[in-house]
């Protein structure tokens, strides 16, 4: 980090916090603190929804994902527009007309207190786990750049987020999200332009696209159906529809965003904006990762991007043959890539077919050497299931981007963390106060009392997020870890809301039993089955609905047979 990078980074963060605090002033009632008195315009809600969903994990991990596996992760967002349409048509007007603070408050109006409480507890547990993951990501950034311990960076990050969230409430969170989203879009565009400019002069943008595609890095759609395959068009269209129905329909961190809207129309437009913009944005981020892959065709990449773990094995005898294999394959791949680009430009089909074989064989050699080195790291005392996916993009940023751009990209990571964390902490506090404290502990206190309870709960969840930051550092990819955690619980919540909206005969006890059954089946599938996480949402939802309907049928049959005469 050079001085200009520090100026860009610190200037961006200070302006975001200052702007959030400025816009959040006057949040002196519970209605203003938690729902901004329902006065937010659609564009602020739309950008806040997008920013809350785009955590630092999105940039750190998604780019690494496409470097390793190509762009097929984009399919995990194909269900988003379908989910948004369903939510706009059903959930948004129902929540607005029920005049609720939280999604779970609606469940008590529809079912009973125990169903509301169970759904609230499931949300607090799930979102609490995710909050730890969200705030951990910048720890990776500064541990690479400055060598600071991850714990120090998470404490600084957490303190910053908690400060403006505690003081300004949802208005501060939403307006700082707007600014953060602008920084994110600017940073992404600059990052892509820069990586393309860093390619050798002899390699055109068309060549770069061709080389990325030949290595399978532009595989946006895969049509083969496989239960074990995490990302294909079927899990994307079906599984992710359920995931996003749960996320935007039942997760308070998103529901609270559109409950702040001036009108039903404002809430709907903010969600539909996301339905249109999210897939292109995700495609764009994945494309950056694919271009980073092309960049490393011509600039030798390290065997592992997590240099601390690489140092663990560099001196060992077992590493030397792996390093030799890797270096040889990298050289062969570079030569084949240049020849392939030349053959493409010349329109020489025979040379192109020959070079593609050599290019892919060299890539297989690189993948093999990297996999065996990762295995060696594990055997040398490194983390189990070691993977450096989360370090690829940041390693590239810090080593090759020019002064100023590094600061901007790091600011993007921080802005994304702040937007996602503040939204999570704010929603966790809202559910804690409205669905648990006010409902079960102090039902008749003053507005001022609940305002301070909300601030105290915000502070508590901020500390909790920092304390549990980093628990998910072992998974191969943080972006996948976040979605897996969500999918373990979302299906159950979604099933509960499907019962609320679709099956009017079903009552609270049947729903409660259905939720317990659904969660048990999802957890059993996770531990004992071999099913992609996107399907957990479908399984959980279906089990909740079927169980509740069965219980309803059974219990409605009993009184009928016992009724005298």
């Amino acid at each position: 980090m050079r001085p200009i990078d520090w100026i860009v980074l610190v200037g961006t963060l200070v302006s975001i916090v200052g702007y959030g605090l400025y816009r959040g002033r006057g949040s002196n009632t519970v209605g203003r603190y938690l729902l901004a008195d329902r006065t937010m315009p659609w564009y602020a809600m739309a950008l806040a929804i997008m920013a809350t969903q785009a955590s630092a994990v999105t940039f750190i991990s998604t780019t690494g994902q496409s470097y390793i596996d190509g762009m097929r992760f984009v399919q995990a967002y194909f269900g988003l527009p379908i989910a948004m349409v369903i939510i706009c048509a059903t959930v948004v007007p129902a929540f607005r007309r029920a005049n609720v603070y939280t999604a779970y408050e609606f469940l008590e109006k529809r079912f009973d207190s125990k169903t509301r409480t169970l759904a609230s507890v499931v949300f607090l547990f799930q979102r609490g786990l995710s909050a730890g993951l969200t705030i951990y990501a910048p720890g990776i950034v500064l541990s690479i750049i400055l060598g600071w311990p991850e714990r120090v960076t998470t404490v600084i990050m957490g303190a910053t987020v908690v400060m403006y969230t505690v003081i300004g409430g949802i208005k501060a969170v939403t307006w700082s999200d707007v600014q953060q989203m602008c920084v994110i879009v600017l940073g992404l565009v600059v990052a892509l332009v820069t990586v393309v400019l860093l390619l050798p002069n002899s390699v055109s943008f068309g060549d770069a696209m061709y080389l990325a595609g030949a290595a399978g890095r532009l595989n946006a759609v895969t049509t083969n159906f496989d239960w074990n395959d995490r990302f294909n068009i079927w899990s994307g269209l079906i599984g992710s529809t359920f995931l996003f129905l749960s996320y935007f329909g039942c997760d308070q961190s998103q529901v609270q965003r559109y409950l702040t809207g001036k009108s039903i129309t404002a809430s709907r437009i903010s969600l539909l904006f996301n339905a249109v913009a999210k897939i292109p944005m995700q495609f764009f981020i994945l494309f950056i990762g694919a271009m980073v892959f092309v960049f490393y065709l011509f600039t030798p990449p390290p065997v592992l991007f997590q240099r601390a773990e690489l140092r663990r094995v560099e001196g060992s005898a077992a590493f030397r043959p792996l390093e030799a294999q890797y270096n040889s394959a990298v050289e062969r791949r570079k030569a084949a890539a240049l020849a392939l680009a030349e053959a493409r430009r010349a329109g020489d089909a025979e040379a192109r077919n020959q070079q593609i074989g050599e290019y892919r064989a060299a890539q297989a050699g690189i993948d093999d050497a990297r996999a065996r080195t990762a295995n060696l790291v594990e055997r040398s005392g490194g983390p189990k299931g070691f993977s450096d996916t989360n370090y690829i993009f940041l390693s590239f940023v810090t080593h090759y981007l020019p002064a100023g751009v590094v600061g901007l990209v790091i600011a993007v990571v921080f802005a994304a963390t702040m937007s996602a964390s503040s939204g999570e902490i704010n929603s966790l506090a809202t559910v804690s106060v409205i669905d648990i404290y006010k409902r079960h502990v102090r039902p008749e206190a003053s507005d001022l009392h609940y305002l301070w309870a909300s601030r105290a709960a915000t502070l508590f969840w901020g500390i909790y997020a920092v304390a549990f930051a980093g628990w998910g550092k072992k998974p191969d990819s943080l972006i996948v870890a976040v979605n897996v955690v969500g999918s373990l619980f979302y299906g159950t919540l979604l099933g509960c809301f499907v019962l609320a909206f679709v099956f009017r005969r079903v009552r609270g006890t049947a729903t409660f039993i259905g939720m317990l059954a659904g969660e048990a089946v999802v957890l059993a599938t996770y531990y004992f089955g071999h099913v992609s996480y996107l399907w957990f949402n479908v399984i959980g939802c279906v089990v909740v609905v079927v169980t509740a309907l069965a219980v309803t049928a059974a219990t409605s049959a009993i009184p009928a047979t016992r009724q005298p005469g």
Partner: protein
Amino acid sequence: MPELREVPDEKPPFLGTWPRVYAAILIYLAVVVVAAWLFTRAYR
């Protein structure tokens, strides 16, 4: 269903009715999926 208050449901700012807006979003999704599939085929 829970007790509901009256909240006016205005027309959307474009396309006249909400069902038309929803249909436009789903058509957009179909176009995006087909475009992504063509993109994959073009560069594999």
